[in-house]
């Protein structure tokens, strides 16, 4: 049976080559974007895994205390723990080099005598007679450098490498070069090694280590050693597997990966609508053929099987084309993701060649075919349900659209309402899969009500089209009002793409407004000095001595040192902002919410309480009046929460405490920001110049006036959203490809309709105008429906997605400007898409067309 039906189908393909090609292209595009994103994602994860493996070497466990480090005495405790065979201290610093246009360098401070037991170093011995360069690291200001970095800068053994340390710019002597294997592979060779005790001094670590890497003895299981260390070490320290670090790196790029993934799913979804549109047209065209087949004994299931088989083949061909194209697209996606990952980590990520993962190929292929089958499902079912007697009648006998009853609208509306309630009422930690199921539910609801939305939008548009387009304009929308489902697939493709564009745009705008409010309320010093072009460096800090030098300037009234770092908190991490509370309260006391300001002003400077950010409060369900329990390297600390402040420096949530308290419990006097208040009449620009002069050649210090600092943060937010902007561009492109595709298919298959119009007196120019105006109407309706869909998706993004990715919800904001700016773009693209089909439509031969069924 099926070979015979395939023969029928193949004849149809031959006579409708354009439709088949465009439909296959629709699937290919979706699969290409999906495959590219997943391949780039997998390559990035490979790169992260390799980085973690190379940095960890043979380590089976790591002892850490967040970013703050811990006293070096801990090393003896670890080494004396039964079952620990090797334990080596590490300090990691991402330091700025004195070279222009060069990324940062990861400096690993290691114990020169023992570290080779843990990590692989292969030295280039061609330039030196020294048998073991690691031993020579013990000499002051010595450093080992990766061969690739040295070659890029023409450095040889014995040359000086300038680095910005906590005590200013210093030159280090290159004592050896290691090859690009083992540790030399990490971060594209942007890595150097120095003595851990020298690193303590030059990078302001005091007598602390950042980490201890250890190997358990063969006779003691890792779990046993881990348990023993947990029992023996202070509560602020964590003993974890090195892979956890990989997880942390992965988490840092989660938002980017999720964003890219959503974009790829949008592309696939548009593909589904394209298939749906194409097969709906095919079933309409082949109405009589279906009747004949049924009349000669083909069963219903064979009819649906014929269409689904067609979808299967199209899906398979489209998927293969998509995978091939996606592989090349992946190179671009990988470049973008690596560059964003580099900006997140502070150093370039370890580059990896693109890998063709067979499981990804299979997944992409299966998804492409599944999307094709899903899109063809309803048209195939409709074809199988055709009454053969009716199908053999003329075209007018074809039953048109089923009534768009209120039952359908109620069902769709009910789903949307349910989805809204779920989004609002379910907690952020309900799980990403479930939350994305809400989005799927929302999309289903929108798809169900889509024909009604199209009808309403077309009704609203009619007076305008009548006025601007004359009778052709009115005719164009009348067809939409009468048969909204005919164009629902086209509008649906547009809706999905634009919904994503509008809601991402709304999210970005809302986030920017929130950041503006935060910076104006909380960041109100006259000048700021920062350690990094990112918001902060996790490893490079100032010493307090810098603040003293700045305080000595005549126009400076007050200097506040701020330490901002991450600490372990309840099995996760939280940010700590250690500020000089009296100064902080003087400038930003009014920003305290949900607490007694008077009590807060009294207790906070004494170190008898903390403030918490709102996202910390949401994340950990602790409010004003509650308490936070902190495991510090010294001992446990339990403090009352005296109020909440709006602060977005960390997605983990921030605890604000007095700097003296922090220094006491964490034994850390490092400084990440210096905030400067000027005397009345002080000239910020002039003082900025003086501070730059003061720090020139000594600290890697970035000095900003208040306005510059706020602009800089806005810039960082923009940088954070670069990917989202790219996603917007991809979404617009996908939406446009969707509309181009569906319009070309729709118009090219309506020859008979145009033939009738010509027969009853429609001029060629009128047919062209009609087609173009219909494209305009579809695009306007698409934008309107996309905006309605965005209303729901904005709610999802500003609440659920934001909570998952950042720990706080952003206020609902509707991007009117974006919607209005998108409209002409979409209309222009639609006109462009419809131009060629419109020309074909006007050249329709009436006699052939009206005999065409």
């Amino acid at each position, binding site marked *: 049976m099926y070979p015979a039906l395939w023969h029928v189908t193949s004849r149809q393909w031959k006579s409708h080559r354009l439709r088949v090609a465009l439909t296959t292209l629709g699937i290919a595009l979706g699969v290409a974007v999906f495959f590219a994103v997943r391949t780039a994602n997998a390559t990035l994860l490979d790169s992260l895994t390799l980085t973690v493996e190379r940095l960890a070497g043979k380590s089976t466990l790591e002892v850490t205390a967040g970013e703050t480090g811990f006293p070096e005495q801990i090393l003896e405790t670890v080494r004396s723990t039964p079952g620990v065979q090797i334990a080596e201290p590490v300090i990691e610093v991402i330091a700025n080099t004195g070279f222009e246009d060069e990324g940062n360098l990861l400096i690993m401070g290691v114990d020169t005598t023992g570290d080779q037991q843990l990590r692989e170093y292969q030295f280039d011995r061609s330039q030196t007679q020294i048998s073991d360069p690691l031993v020579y690291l013990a000499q002051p200001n010595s450093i080992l450098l990766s061969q690739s970095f040295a070659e890029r800068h023409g450095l040889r053994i014995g040359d000086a490498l300038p680095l910005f340390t906590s005590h200013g710019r210093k030159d280090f002597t290159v004592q050896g070069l290691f090859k690009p294997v083992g540790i030399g592979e990490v971060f594209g060779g942007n890595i150097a090694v120095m003595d851990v005790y020298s690193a303590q001094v030059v990078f302001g670590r005091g007598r602390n280590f950042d980490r201890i890497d250890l190997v358990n003895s063969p006779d003691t299981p890792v779990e046993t050693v881990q348990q023993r260390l947990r029992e023996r070490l202070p509560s602020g320290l964590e003993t974890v597997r090195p892979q956890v670090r990989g997880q942390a790196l992965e988490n840092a790029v989660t938002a980017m990966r999720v964003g890219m993934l959503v974009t790829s799913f949008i592309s696939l979804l548009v593909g589904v609508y394209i298939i749906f549109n194409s097969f709906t047209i095919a079933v309409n065209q082949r109405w009589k053929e279906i009747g004949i087949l049924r009349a000669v004994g083909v069963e219903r299931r064979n009819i649906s099987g014929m269409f689904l088989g067609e979808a299967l083949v199209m899906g398979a061909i489209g998927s293969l084309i998509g995978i091939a194209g996606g592989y090349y697209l992946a190179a671009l996606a990988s470049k973008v993701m690596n560059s964003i990952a580099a900006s997140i980590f502070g150093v370039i990520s370890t580059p990896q060649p693109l890998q063709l993962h067979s499981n990804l190929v299979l997944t992409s292929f299966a998804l492409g075919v599944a999307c094709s089958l899903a899109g063809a499902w309803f048209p195939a079912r409709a074809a199988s349900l055709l009454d053969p007697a009716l199908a053999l009648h003329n075209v007018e006998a074809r039953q048109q659209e089923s009534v768009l009853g209120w039952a359908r609208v109620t069902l769709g509306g009910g789903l949307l309402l349910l989805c809204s309630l779920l989004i609002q009422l379910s907690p952020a930690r309900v799980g990403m899969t479930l939350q994305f199921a809400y989005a799927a539910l929302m999309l289903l609801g929108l798809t169900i009500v889509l024909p009604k939305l199209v009808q309403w939008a077309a009704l609203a548009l009619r007076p305008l089209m009548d006025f601007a387009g004359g009778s052709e304009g009115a005719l164009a929308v009348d067809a939409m009002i*009468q048969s909204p489902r005919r164009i629902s697939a086209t509008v649906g493709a547009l809706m999905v793409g634009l919904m994503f564009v509008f809601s991402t745009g709304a999210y970005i705008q809302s986030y920017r407004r929130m950041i503006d409010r935060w910076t104006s309320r909380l960041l109100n010093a006259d000048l700021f000095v920062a350690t990094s072009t990112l918001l902060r460096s996790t490893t490079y800090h100032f010493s307090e001595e810098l603040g003293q030098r700045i305080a000595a300037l005549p126009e400076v009234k007050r200097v506040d040192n701020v330490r901002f770092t991450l600490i372990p908190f309840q099995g996760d991490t939280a940010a700590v902002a250690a500020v000089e509370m009296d100064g902080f309260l003087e400038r930003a006391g009014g920003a305290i919410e949900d607490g007694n300001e008077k009590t807060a002003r009294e207790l906070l400077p004494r170190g008898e309480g903390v403030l918490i950010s709102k996202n910390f409060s949401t994340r950990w369900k602790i409010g004003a009046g509650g308490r936070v329990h902190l495991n510090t390297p010294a001992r446990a600390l339990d403090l009352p929460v005296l109020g909440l402040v709006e602060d977005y420096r960390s997605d983990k949530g921030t605890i604000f405490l007095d700097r003296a308290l922090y220094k006491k419990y964490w034994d850390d006097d490092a400084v990440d920001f210096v905030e400067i208040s000027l005397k009345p009449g002080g000239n910020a620009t002039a003082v900025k110049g003086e501070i730059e002069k003061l720090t020139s050649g000594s600290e890697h210090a970035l000095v900003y006036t208040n306005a510059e600092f706020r602009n800089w943060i806005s810039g960082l937010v923009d940088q954070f959203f670069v990917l989202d902007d790219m996603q917007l561009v991809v979404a617009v492109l996908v939406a446009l490809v969707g509309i181009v595709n569906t319009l070309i298919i729709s118009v090219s298959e309506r020859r008979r309709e145009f033939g009738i119009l010509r027969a009853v007196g429609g001029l060629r120019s009128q047919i062209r105008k009609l087609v173009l105006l219909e494209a305009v109407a579809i695009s306007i309706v698409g934008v309107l429906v996309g905006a309605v869909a965005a209303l729901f998706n904005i709610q999802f993004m500003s609440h659920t997605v934001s909570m998952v990715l950042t720990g706080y919800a952003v206020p609902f904001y509707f991007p009117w400007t974006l919607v209005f700016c998108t409209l002409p773009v979409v209309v222009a693209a639609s006109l462009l898409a419809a131009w060629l089909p419109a020309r074909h439509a006007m050249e329709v031969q009436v*006699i052939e067309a009206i005999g065409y069924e």
Partner: protein
Amino acid sequence: MIQLTDVSKSYGSEKTVHALSHIDLTIAPGERVAVMGPSGSGKSTLLNLVCGLDEPTSGSVKVEGVELSGLTDDARTRLRREKIGMIFQTFNLLPTLTAGENVALPLRLQGEHKHEAERRAVAMLERVGLKDRAVHRPDELSGGERQRVAIARAVIFRPPLLLGDEPTGNLDSVTGEEILRLLDDLHSEYNNTLLLVTHNVQAAGHCDRIVSLHDGQIVRDERIEQGLAEIR
């Protein structure tokens, strides 16, 4: 009204098919003419040439004194929408539009405002006995009703010339007869010229004159009594 002088129409280049060969035919205003003949005799080609959907290979086609071969495509289309109403065997209604909207379509293509066009369409539907079906789409109408809608669409702008291509070909005999009576009524009301291509003797019986075609040539051209008797 219609004048065909030495009209020939051929198709194909290598293996030429002569659909019409040296036809001369004159139809007076208000006259009802049935064109009959077996399949492939050139009936539909003749109709397509008269309504300007096709052009002759040689010869002259004049409608209301206007030489069609000298007209551009747009001019022929304008002539069609102002002077010629067309009725098809397969109705050729737009399935997405209601009966009222289908009838109003020629007026709207002429730039008539929607409300006025639809008001006139409803009046015309009332005239053909389908006032209650104005908001129904073609798939909700019977075959006879669909052909009535098609007739209403063809005559809504009072064309002086009405062309019918097997208008009863898809209908049962009772419904077919109703349609023919409707055409009679409309003819007596508007006095338009009717050119009917048909296989159906019953349909031809409603005309004043029968032109018989065979292999692209006119083999007989007679008044109705004589013609029908010959055919029967």
